[in-house]
């Protein structure tokens, strides 16, 4: 009995003792350098909820597309189209997570490579067994292909509906829409499934900074996304800023719908800023993030003493102001107001430098991807 009491007592004292040291808060700085905390926050408060939100929008789009497939008419087309717009916008908030499951499934390549390959799409309609898993098929599926199919196959809605009710090929065309939407659904389910099962734990446990660590993969994907898909894809290439000034308005995102291209770009940019600052999807509150990590590392401009994260946020804000100067239809902007497009590109170029050089250097992360500028 005595022995038992002794054990209980020791246990109690030990528990109190360890509890006592446990409540001693580590300094904010030490906490900020805890990459596990950052990865957990980003996974639980940003990435997984963002995918869940996107899933809702994609599901809604699937319902509307189903309705349109069953009954191709103007009302269903309009409903499908607006669901497509909403899903496309929501996609911009998850496209940046191009690491882990998304990278494994190369979901971006299957969801948003534009401009759409019209001939490829038409060939696939004719051949329902065509392979949609190969790189050559990237531009024949996803949002850009749907853009073509519901906005670009004819001029008016009436004609578009007629395209799908045509007695000869209508059914095949409908079938292709179904094929695309169900493929998108399958791919997204795979990505979300991995995040919800094993990958989340893998992600938060690989806390190193070597090239296979979560932070390194995430930062590489994050920087690449800005450089190649926001800066080059949405502005650099259409405006010709990257190719001898030869403009390519047909290479804007959502080329067939046209008037949503700016919204897509702005959404992508805002999602980028929010991820940098660790803004939780549901609460809108900022948590442990790349920003807090840089602050904890005391990354600053030694000449002015300004925090690197503030410099970066200011640069992102400056870019946002340039974006605000644009009108919704980027296709038109390239043709008539291209200087404004180029100035967005130029501003983004400054952000790329901060991301790719200053941020990675301060974090001691190696950029392992190679950019394919100038292609």
């Amino acid at each position: 009995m005595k022995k038992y009491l002794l054990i209980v007592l020791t246990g109690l004292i030990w528990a109190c003792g360890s509890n006592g040291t446990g409540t001693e808060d580590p300094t904010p700085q030490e906490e900020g350098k805890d990459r596990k905390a950052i990865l957990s926050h980003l996974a639980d408060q940003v990435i997984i909820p963002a995918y869940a939100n996107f899933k809702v929008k994609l599901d809604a789009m699937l319902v509307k597309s189903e309705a349109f497939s069953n009954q191709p008419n103007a009302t269903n087309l309009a409903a499908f189209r607006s669901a497509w717009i909403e899903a496309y916008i929501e996609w911009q908030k998850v496209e940046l997570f191009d690491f882990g499951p998304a990278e494994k499934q190369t979901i971006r390549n299957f969801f948003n490579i534009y401009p759409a390959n019209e001939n490829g799409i038409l060939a696939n309609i004719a051949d329902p067994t065509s392979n949609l898993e190969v790189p050559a098929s990237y531009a024949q599926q996803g949002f850009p292909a749907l853009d073509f199919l519901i906005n670009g196959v004819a001029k008016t809605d009436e004609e578009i509906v007629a395209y799908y009710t045509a007695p000869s090929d209508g059914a095949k065309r409908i079938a292709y829409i179904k094929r695309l939407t169900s493929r998108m659904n399958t791919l997204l389910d795979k990505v979300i499934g991995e995040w919800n099962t094993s990958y989340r734990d893998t992600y938060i446990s690989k806390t190193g900074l070597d090239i296979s660590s979560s932070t390194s993969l995430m930062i590489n994907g994050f920087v690449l996304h800005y450089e190649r898909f926001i800066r080059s894809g949405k502005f650099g290439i259409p405006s010709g800023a990257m190719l001898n000034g030869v403009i390519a308005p047909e290479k804007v995102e959502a080329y067939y719908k046209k008037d949503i291209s700016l919204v897509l770009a702005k959404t992508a940019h805002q999602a980028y800023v929010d991820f940098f600052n660790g803004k939780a999807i549901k609460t809108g509150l900022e948590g442990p993030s790349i920003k807090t990590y840089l602050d904890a590392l005391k990354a600053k401009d030694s000449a002015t003493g300004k925090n690197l994260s503030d410099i970066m946020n200011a640069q992102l804000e400056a870019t946002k102001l340039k974006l605000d100067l644009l009108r919704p239809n980027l296709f038109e902007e390239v043709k008539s107001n291209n200087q404004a497009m180029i100035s967005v590109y130029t501003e983004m170029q400054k952000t790329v430098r901060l991301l790719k050089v200053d941020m990675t250097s301060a974090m001691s992360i190696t950029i392992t991807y190679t950019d394919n500028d100038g292609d």
Partner: protein
Amino acid sequence: MMGINQYVKKTTNAAPLAVFRICFGLMLFGSIIRFWNKGWIESLYIKPTYFFTFYGFEWVKPWGEYTYALFFICALSAFMVAIGLFYRVAISSLFLSFSYIELMDKSTYLNHYYFISLICLLLVFLPAQVYFSVDSYRHKQIRAQFIPQWNIDSIKLMMAILYFYAGLAKVNSDWLWHAQPLSIWLPARNDMPIIGFLFNYTWIPYLFSWFGCLYDLSIPFLLWNKKTRIWAYVAVIVFHVLTALLFPIGMFPHIMMVAALIFFSAEFHQNVMNRMVAFFRLPIEKQQPSSVYQAPRFLHWGFVLFFAFQIIFPFRYLIYPDELFWTEEGYRFSWRVMLMEKAGYAQFTVKGGQGQQAVVNNNVHLSTLQEKMMSTQPDMILQYAHYLCDYYAKLGFSSPQVYVDSYVALNGRLGKPLINPQTDLAKEQDSFTHKTWILPFNDTIKGF
């Protein structure tokens, strides 16, 4: 003068040099196997289409698929050096093949490769085979129990130069006052078991910086001195094990830990040797008790010149204006190790006579490592610009002009352009004079 004459005549047991030869040969052999095994021959020397040659060594290039043969020769030579078979041929071939490999591409330059080349060069002229080697087993006439003292001292001196100069290079304001780049590198390892949490403290990088600097400056003397030697060697182990754990620096810590054994006494090495003999049941060679190896006289002057060069050459940076870390003029071959966190971005634009213009995709021409190295080092930027000039000329650009938009961050400073974006690099030539198209650093890093 008398002192020098006496020193030159002084002899010592050949055992330390023999043990050094075995260890050094085996370490190099292992390094090359490791290199091969990791697939680096392919990724560094066969896959890339362009290679950054060294000034004056433009003819040194990989041999395509035959590069494997080069590494095979190198590994075989290292093994033959270790066992002391055809020693002079083996060490000469090791020196040549290893140096050739290291000269093939600047982007793989490492100070410790340079160190290995130099040690090989010294060993070409040192009698490391006269004792405890296959050669001395087979040929009685070359056996010797004693060799000149300076033979062993020259290896020690080379190691001392490496450490001391590496220490001297750390005497600068970035390293000591700002603990850079360790303030950047150490927090990156804060998830290490047991000691990781330490790297969250701001004072830890300072401690490491100061310890590292004092270690490098003092360790040669502490190793040389008999009284402090054993503790100095403990410090060597601690220091290099730590660096091996913390940084991806491959074989270097292991090579240094083994090489530093040269400072130990002849008895120590004789002991090591006796154990090896017993363990491997080697046929023991009976030395004639008093046989002494005589070094040819011309070698004395050769060694004097060699070390004079080693002492002066790292200071060549003094003849260049602006900040060494920024321009990197006189940076290589000077034992400047782990001093900089430098990252950069270089986007090239090529313009042709008929209004052609292209933004270069570095990815097409360079490997990730090459691009990373090139983007922070002006001489490589220039080499690459010339390559681009030729490349675009072939594509039909008439007299191509090459411009670079560069951006470099150094030791926690915010990045800024490194190269004058208005300079047509195609027109600039590389030389040992200052590159005027490098933009000024506009900051000072005080010290060596």
